[in-house]
């Protein structure tokens, strides 16, 4: 071999190529494992839930009866509770999160952005059981003693919407659950919004300012239209978390298998009913099967929401 010939492969190529192949294989199987695990979970939930789907058919989705003594199970109340609390939480959280993101990207002085941003990320890291205890011991008494009686007095007799604000002031219920959930998802939505607002090319904003736009006009006409899809994606991400939240909701929702007629009424969510009923469900019982079927339904709902959020959050093509 002459000195002039360059080696086609680096020295020790044989060993390296084995190592490369091994690494590629390991990485591939790690990636595939995720898919296998995911489908295994879906499949086992579905198979275990099958006896319940067989027994109750499609009615399982809308039946509001949950009677362990008579072995009649319906998912109507938990599905209703899950969707209503999550949507209410979004209604409360989105405007606040938008305000936070707007403030952080457009108004806050540069030195102040970092501490507030960090605080938001820390809020997202608080374990949900802490939110649950805080909700139960702090928010529930406030709701029961002050907020709910106040709302009943002021809005309870208003035609059309009055019924939403009636009922015994327990402090727990749909509204309290939505409130605690809102606090929990605000950091997610605010952080996503801030990040996507920052992706707006400065030249767009500068041009608008140059034309004499106010900060609000820049936000409304430049930033929001530019990032609309991503913002909705971030909201869906928050919705995904709100749907699956278990402990915090269990503490404050009142845990009742009836469709609430009032915002103060107690209800149930899929996650909380599964957490509460699971320990006392016997192997092979219809109850256990129904709980696993509920798990499957929650999985499907969350899957759809997350899929939409991914779709909307994908980087915009040029």
């Amino acid at each position, binding site marked *: 071999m002459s000195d002039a010939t360059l080696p086609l492969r680096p020295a020790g190529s044989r060993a390296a190529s084995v190592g490369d192949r091994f690494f590629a294989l390991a990485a591939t199987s790690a990636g595939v494992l995720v898919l296998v695990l995911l489908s295994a979970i879906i499949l086992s939930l579905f198979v275990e839930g099958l006896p319940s789907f067989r027994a109750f058919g499609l009615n399982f989705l809308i039946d509001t009866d949950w009677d*362990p003594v*008579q072995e009649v199970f319906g998912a109507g109340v938990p599905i209703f509770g899950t969707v209503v609390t999550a949507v209410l939480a979004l209604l409360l959280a989105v405007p606040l999160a938008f305000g936070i993101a707007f403030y952080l990207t457009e108004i806050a002085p540069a030195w102040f952005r970092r501490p507030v941003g960090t605080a938001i990320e820390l809020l997202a890291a608080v374990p949900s059981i802490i939110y649950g205890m805080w909700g139960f011991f702090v928010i529930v008494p406030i709701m*029961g003693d002050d907020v709910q009686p106040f709302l009943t007095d002021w809005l309870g007799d208003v035609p059309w919407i009055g019924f939403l604000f009636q009922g*015994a002031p327990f402090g727990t219920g749909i509204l309290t659950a939505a409130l605690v959930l809102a606090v929990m998802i605000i950091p997610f939505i605010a952080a996503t919004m801030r990040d996507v607002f920052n992706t707006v090319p400065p030249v767009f904003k500068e041009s608008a300012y140059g034309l004499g736009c106010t900060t609000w006009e820049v936000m409304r006409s430049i930033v929001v239209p530019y990032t609309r899809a991503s913002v909705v994606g971030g909201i869906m991400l928050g919705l995904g978390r709100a749907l699956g939240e278990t402990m915090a909701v269990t503490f404050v929702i*009142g845990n009742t*298998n009836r469709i609430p007629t009032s915002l103060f009424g107690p209800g149930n969510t899929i996650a909380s009913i599964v957490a*509460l009923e699971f*320990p*006392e469900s016997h192997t092979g019982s219809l109850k256990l099967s129904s709980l696993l079927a509920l798990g499957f339904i929650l999985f499907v709902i969350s899957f759809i929401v997350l899929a939409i959020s991914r779709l909307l959050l994908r980087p915009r093509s040029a």
Partner: protein
Amino acid sequence: MKLVSTALAITLAAFTVGAQAQQITGAGATFPAPVYAKWGEAAKAAIGIELNYQAIGSGGGQNQIINRTVDFGASDAPVDGAKLEQNHLLQFPTVMGAVVPIVNLPGVEANKLKLPSELLADIYLGKITKWNDPRLVEANRDVKLPNVAIAPVYRADGSGTTFVFTSYLSAVSPDWKAQVGAATSVKWAAGNGAKGNDGVAATVKQVRGAIGYVEYAYAKQNKLATTQLRNKAGQFVSPTLAAFTAAADAGDWHNAPNFAVNLIDTAGTEAWPIVSATFILLPKNPVDPERSANVMKFFDFAFKNGDEIATSLDYIALPAGVKDAVRASWHADIRGPGLAAIWK
């Protein structure tokens, strides 16, 4: 280096000590978990049997022992005879407990409120909604009942406490039996759910006019306002240890198959009406006879020396005759290889 070898020696020593204590594992009911834990400490010191008990709930305990993943299961609700037979399980009681109503009524002292049993059922059925309902006033001439809405609170998680409480309501109210029934979780007609004894207690404390039900031990240790109940003999009784013992004595232990004695609404004149035993499930054909023998040794020790611990934790100890009957059933039913009795 020296540090490492010292650490190693200590670790090894710890292992040897650990190996001397023989471990038994159990899982199930949360209600007796505190007394099992105390018995476990005492037994480890006295007879070298270490109990590893996981309070995962009665249903979980039954599942685990049916799958034989633990040495014994524990359940608050007695398991029915056919299921015991099918899974080759022996059932025996360990201690008893009482369930008591708790209320939050400003101006009404503990154990002053008298609750006729059918009214308690009607409160939980949502038929009586105000504390100054004429029927409640009728029963409580000496108490001034406020015009406050009744807020019933129940256990939202499946629990043996709920099973005992709903068994009582089913026993005293035909309406309850027909509309709701008895189970670890039921279809409640009124009220709010809370998680665990502590959740029920906290909710009752927070809501004016609330009524809930908890284990007596929990009510006593947290100084909750309990009520009187009317028993089968027509007497109003307060929840006291004497009243619970009276209920236990009135039970028909010797004719109950699998010790599944009914202590709900017994006939004794002084008896508290909501008392129940908690049970252990033991395989009749143990995979490991030695471990099974250790489980029996453990409970034998607890029967002999554990009454004081049980009473101090506000449980009710079994009558001596019942303990003997349990030992006799160990001898008769638990068989090792070659069908030899494990408990001699």
